[in-house]
């Protein structure tokens, strides 16, 4: 009996988590940027809007020429009706002994296939 209750709670938690990423564009952008830094092809492909699918290889390999790429201080919030997400923080990567920084900015998102998708930079 207790096991069933735990399973049910787990299922509920899982569904609640799914809901957050699907309904909150800021979460979708954070997931996208995280995948971009690590080169997570499946996540990038799923969260890249249809208008930009031709750029998938660029997105997957974006930071493959540098090492130790990681996000620092990422904080994304939706703006207005949610079609724009503004992020703070930066991507930091190493090349040899030196570091390069890529500040995060504002991104378009598009609602497609029942979830928010990243759709490039904007003002």
């Amino acid at each position, binding site marked *: 009996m207790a096991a069933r209750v735990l399973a049910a709670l787990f299922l509920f938690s899982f569904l609640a988590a799914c*809901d957050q990423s699907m309904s909150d564009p800021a979460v979708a952008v954070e997931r996208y940027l995280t995948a971009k830094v690590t080169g997570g092809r499946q996540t990038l492909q799923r969260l890249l809007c249809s208008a930009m699918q031709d750029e998938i290889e660029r997105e997957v390999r*974006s930071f493959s*020429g540098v090492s130790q790429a990681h996000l620092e201080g990422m904080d994304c919030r939706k703006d207005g009706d949610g079609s724009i997400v503004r992020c703070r923080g930066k991507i930091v990567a190493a090349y040899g002994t030196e570091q390069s920084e890529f500040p995060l900015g*504002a991104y378009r998102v598009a609602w497609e296939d029942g979830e928010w998708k990243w759709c490039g930079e*904007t003002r």
Partner: protein
Amino acid sequence: MNRKLLFLLLFILFVAALFVALTNPGAPARAPTARGAATPASAIMAPTASQPRATANLPAGESLNGVPLDEIIVLPPAVIAQMRQVYQLGQAFGNDSRAFSRIGDSTIENPHFLARFDESPYNLGPYADLQEVIDHFQGSFARQGLAVQRGLHSWSVFDPMWADPLYCEPDESLIACELREQRPSIVLIRLGSNDVGVPESFEKNLRRLVDYALAQGVIPVLGTKADRNEGESNINNEIIRRVAAESQVPLWDFDRAAQALPDHGLREDGVHMSYFYEHDYTLPNALLTGHGLHNLTALMMLDRVWREVMDGG
């Protein structure tokens, strides 16, 4: 009874969770936002059959370290003819005939690549004729610009995330940003060291970059690299040569020159070039260091394009 109640509760929770997940209170009604600044990839020119004038301020048969210059500075008549049209188009667009840009990775970073020709001191020695091209493009040599980045590979050229947000527009690629800011007539392109193992992607991106420059009326000069990161196949340099030949754009075949140098003119890391701090081409080591030969051949390439394509000198 308790069991039935528990299942009922779970069922309600499940349905509620599904409902929340599949509806979206903030979803816009309009169509998905299209990408704003997709980069045009089509070239605007067809090769021309017009006859170019006779070429070469450098004597035929001249060589560097035993390598014929015309194998390093590759600018055949058909390319000159086509590039003249590109140059004229660029002039109509308002490009600056006295400016060039560069795009590439750490191998063309300041201060070792060309910068001294703006900043002094340097001594051209037997290559004093090149002073004219230095005078003409004064200001471009020490300017690293917005399209040189450590670790840059060919696909990042069109990735707005790699562009400097202080100078570049949102969703503007680093090459678009550089050409908008500098309005050059020539862009030196040195890529490939970071594109190991993805030759198809490298070729596709390089062609896209060349087409983009041509469409902006900017003469793209493709440079080969000294390293052999891909192994003996040297495939990325072969791709650069092929793209230059097929697109009929100038080829600065530095790899060909570097073959004559100890360790290809590279430092211990096998990528970056050996130093030539002196910038004095009367010294015996001038043509035996990576940067010494790199800078000299780059100047020669600029000189040829300026004289033959832009009617300089």
